[in-house]
């Protein structure tokens, strides 16, 4: 097929708008923003890419005072999810973070990484860590000890985020502003309960006991 160079298409429905067409009404005054890369599910084969031999150790093996946090991830039919990954991030027992992003400065607590990842292929996840200390909330108050959790799995197109609080910190929990924003009848889903070697924290993705998830 040959093209006729004089066969100019009619004006489009939307006429050409120069980029400066909005001059005076936001051009160069709106903050520059790139569009975010969309998330996607981690899929069923996450073990290929995300398995670390040292993944579960938020605190080094044998660290005095260390504890295991274990839990199951359960779907809406009550079935255990065997192909999820749980990641945790938290402060050390003194309330510091091994992160230069902390405006108070990066902390260095012996044996403490603060981050762990664990898969649920055995039916539950397990991470070894130190119980975090209380933290300033930045507005003059104190937060209760907590661990931020990201959960990734086949069937979740984005991570879901929750927080682990500790059932044996009732006084601190009562003063925690975030916990108080959660309806009282759902707060229990955020409490890890003491066990022989640490804590248990089950995550229910749906149902009557659906865990409270957060938008960060």
């Amino acid at each position, binding site marked *: 097929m040959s093209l006729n160079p004089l066969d100019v298409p009619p004006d489009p429905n939307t006429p050409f708008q120069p980029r400066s067409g909005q001059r005076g009404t936001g051009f160069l005054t709106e903050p520059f923003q790139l569009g975010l890369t969309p998330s996607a599910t981690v899929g069923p084969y996450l073990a290929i890419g995300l398995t670390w031999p040292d993944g579960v150790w938020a605190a080094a093996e044998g660290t005095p005072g260390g504890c295991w946090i274990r839990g199951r991830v359960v779907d809406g039919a009550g079935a255990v999810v065997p192909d999820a990954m749980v990641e945790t991030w938290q402060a050390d027992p003194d309330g510091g973070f091994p992160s230069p992003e902390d405006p108070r400065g990066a902390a260095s607590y012996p044996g403490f990484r603060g981050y762990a990842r664990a898969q649920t292929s055995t039916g539950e996840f397990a991470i070894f860590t130190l119980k975090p200390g209380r933290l300033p909330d930045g507005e003059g108050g104190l937060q209760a000890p907590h661990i931020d959790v990201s959960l990734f799995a086949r069937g*979740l197109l984005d991570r879901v985020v929750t927080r682990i609080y500790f059932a044996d910190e009732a006084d601190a929990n009562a003063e925690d502003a975030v916990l108080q924003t959660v309806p009282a009848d759902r707060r229990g889903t955020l409490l890890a309960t003491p066990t022989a070697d640490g804590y248990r924290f089950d995550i229910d993705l*749906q149902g009557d006991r659906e865990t409270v998830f957060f938008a960060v």
Partner: protein
Amino acid sequence: MTGTTSGSRLHLPRYLREDESLRTPVGYAAYKSTGLRAPLRAPVDLPQRLTEVTGPVLGEDRVTAQDADLTWRNGGEAVGQRILVFGRVLDSGGRPVPDALVEVWQANAAGRYRHVVDNWPAPLDPHFDGLGRVVTDSLGRYEFLTIKPGAYPWGNHHNAWRPAHIHFSLFGRAFPQRLVTQMYFPGDPLFGQDPIYNAIPDAARHRAVSQYSLERTQDNWALAYQWDIVLRGTEQTPFETDDDGDVA
């Protein structure tokens, strides 16, 4: 100082959230596995405090030189179309994200993963494990050499095939920047029937698709695909002032 006292007020950055209309939803009906897994209740807003504005430092010690070349394993070369995948990791304010750990995994050229639950009858490649890791440089750049993954069937619906894709996992500086996603190849004819691709709002789908790069294609060696990745950035404060009100 750190410590467990309340102390004074802290000036914390605030990581911007993507507009709802451009964000991939956690659940999507056409992707069947979401049915019993995606939470049904609305999430509770979490204010960004110290735990949310910090993040682990995971860098060079997690990566070896061979992790950036997926085409050579067990003393031999993987079968498939050799490709260079490269790009920059930026935040939404356009700033590079240096020292970011990028973990990738993928199927082999036949569309088969080296994983016990992948049992579809396409051959495994003894010279391909599908795992790569890199850390971004001071300008936020990453690149790795691999083979183009094949498409593969899955049970989501009749004759369902995943478009060719590479899984990516990224850490930025702070908890809100954590991202797990998939990179696609331009013009894939399988996009139209793939619910994982179509779960991305229409206006944002192009961001998940790499672009062919003639410039970086290496003569007699490998095709190149560029994929820039944008993580959440912080709210901009145009001027920092000191106690005298002077612009610092």
